[in-house]
């Protein structure tokens, strides 16, 4: 009896390893803050109280969590098939660009056609970009890690070029001042292609919510995609096959599952998830394609997926935590007048990843030892 109780305790420990990792990372962060000569208690208090202390803060957190849910799901989904899709960055560039292109090209369409069309374009762009490493992996056997990274850099150059081709015309104020447009961005998308901000909905049902808050309907698309990812993985034949390939591709092949087909399909779906970042950044936020609004989102998705243990629910929660850290970090940066650079958050995210994988392995070992003893 006693040994079974102890065993349950380790299972619980396995579930909460992300929490342990986050706490350890915050402690490391505290040491860094002390080394800079600031007070960590004050910094963390400011960070959390501004991020989740009021509705405006929550809105900002969810706005920042939205793209991370997409890129986190992209990584987690591929992980289930044993693939490392670290090309979320590039898939997101291409997907978001296609969404913007549809948005500023088919300006005459009504919203109920244009919005779904833009969303589809975002997914299709990401899927297309991820299909290349998927096919190379499935047909030729090239490792997807280096290819996806190379595809990121190619996507960055290609979308930069396309942004110049579809450059926004200079405004009159800019011409008058003689300013040359330094960072290229595309034309604005049509009004009918824009996703409503959340405040318009909340205010209409008499909930007070600040109008400057950028959280928009894309957040619900992200939640929907998380549910979809769960459904595909655990409720469909395709998901069963994908997970079988992820557990043991040789056994899956022997059982009659086409490994190559599932690798390509997984990459395509994963890329589509990453491409959907465009719904938040283009359709809900800037209403145009601009490179710097995406920086790093693809890579942070890897951290989100690991922290969320590659489960859709975990990904959503981890993305919200990272949303809190990102928004709170920006506030702290302003509050300390730049004495604490916001890149501290990036460092914390990396430390979280290392602690998650280490604590996972340690707990797994403990459980294995336990099983042998029982």
């Amino acid at each position, binding site marked *: 009896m006693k040994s079974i109780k102890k065993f349950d305790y380790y299972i619980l420990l396995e579930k909460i390893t992300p929490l342990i990792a986050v706490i350890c990372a915050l402690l490391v962060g505290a040491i860094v803050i002390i080394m800079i000569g600031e007070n960590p208690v004050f910094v963390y208090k400011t960070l959390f109280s501004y991020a989740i202390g009021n509705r405006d803060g929550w809105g900002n957190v969810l706005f920042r969590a939205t793209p991370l849910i997409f890129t986190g799901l992209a990584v987690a989904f591929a992980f289930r098939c044993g693939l490392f899709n670290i090309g979320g960055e590039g898939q997101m560039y291409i997907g978001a660009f296609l969404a913007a292109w549809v948005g500023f090209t088919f300006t005459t369409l009504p919203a109920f056609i244009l919005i779904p069309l833009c969303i589809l374009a975002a997914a299709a762009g990401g899927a297309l970009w991820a299909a290349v490493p998927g096919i190379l992996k499935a047909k030729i056997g090239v490792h997807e890690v280096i290819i996806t990274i190379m595809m990121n850099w190619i996507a960055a150059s290609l979308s930069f*070029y396309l942004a110049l081709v579809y450059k926004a015309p200079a405004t009159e104020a800019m011409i008058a001042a003689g300013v040359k447009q330094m960072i290229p961005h595309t034309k604005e998308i049509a009004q009918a292609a824009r996703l409503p901000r959340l405040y318009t909905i909340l205010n209409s049902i008499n909930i007070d919510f600040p109008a400057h808050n950028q959280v928009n309907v894309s957040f619900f698309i992200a939640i929907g995609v998380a549910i979809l990812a769960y459904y595909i993985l655990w409720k469909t034949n395709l998901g069963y096959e994908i997970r079988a390939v992820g557990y043991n591709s040789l056994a899956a092949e022997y059982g009659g599952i086409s490994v190559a087909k599932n690798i390509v399909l997984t990459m395509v779906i994963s890329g589509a998830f990453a491409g959907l970042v465009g719904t938040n950044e283009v359709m809900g936020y800037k209403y145009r394609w601009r490179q710097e609004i995406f920086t790093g989102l693809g890579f942070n998705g890897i*951290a989100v997926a690991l922290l969320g243990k590659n489960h859709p629910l975990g990904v959503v929660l981890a993305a919200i935590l990272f949303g809190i850290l990102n928004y709170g970090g920006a506030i702290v940066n302003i509050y300390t007048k730049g004495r604490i650079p916001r890149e501290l958050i990036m460092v914390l995210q990396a430390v979280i990843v290392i602690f998650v994988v280490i604590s996972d392995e340690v707990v797994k070992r403990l459980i294995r030892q336990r099983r042998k003893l029982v």
Partner: protein
Amino acid sequence: MFGDIFNAQFVASSIRVAIPLALAGLGGVFSERSGVINIGLEGMMLTGAFTAVAVTNFAQNPWVGVLSAILVGIFLGLIHAITCITFKANQIVSGVAINLFASGITVFFSWLLFNETQIMVKANLPIWGLPLPSIGEGSAFVRNLIVIFAHYSPLVYLTIIIFILAHLILFKTPFGLRLRSVGEYPQAADTMGVNIVKMRYIAVITSGALAGLAGSFLSLEQAHFFVKEMSGGRGFIALAAMIFGKWTPLGTAGAALLFGVGEALAMRLQGVLAVPVQFINMVPYLLAIFVLVSAVGRAVPPAASGVAYEKEIG
């Protein structure tokens, strides 16, 4: 036009571009030969590039900068080793974490120490070799020979020495044999009394040191400044060079030179061809994909690469 592009300067600049790829690729060779995949090379390079510039500017001495870049590389290599060897965590995940960490920590410290994200180098490394005769004086042939063979930063000569040493160590010494056996068949090596953990630690830390050195070349010699994300995927291109070079030092050097020629050519063509600069920027990455695809079936990785070693008990 042909003569304008393919001249002695072109050869020299190809070699310069190849140096960081070759050094980082050699780091990959050491690490993977011992059985540990190191995709953290990118981050180790980036951190090395930043450290080299920061320390050079504070110490007013580029040699101290190079040395501290190597030390920082060793430190990150140690972290990768602890995560992958001692804790047996997923090697790719650990590498990704190191890359994330590097992107964050370099910008973090450039804000903290310099208040900007682009830092100019204040003290340059000297140029060693024969003095260049000015044009018109002496024959063009002699001048070209000097440009190609004897007019470089000391780090270029150092790289050549490192490569010869690496080849000798890996293939001509008992130590090299043990290192390779640990990456091919650790169970057998263990039976023969080779300390797997120790060998892998040495290899991964060496790869960190080489990546750090590669980073210092990138910022101190190639760019003369540090800017955020300046490694620009070179750590991964270095891995492609390693694969194309079949996990050998000399093969990796050759593949890195191929990339060097590609990138130098792209830079030269910028003014000549009417192709948008964005497409020219893609060349190194397209070349890497092409190289990887063509290496399939030809290049076989060390058998135990990427697999943590579990000692059999009982």
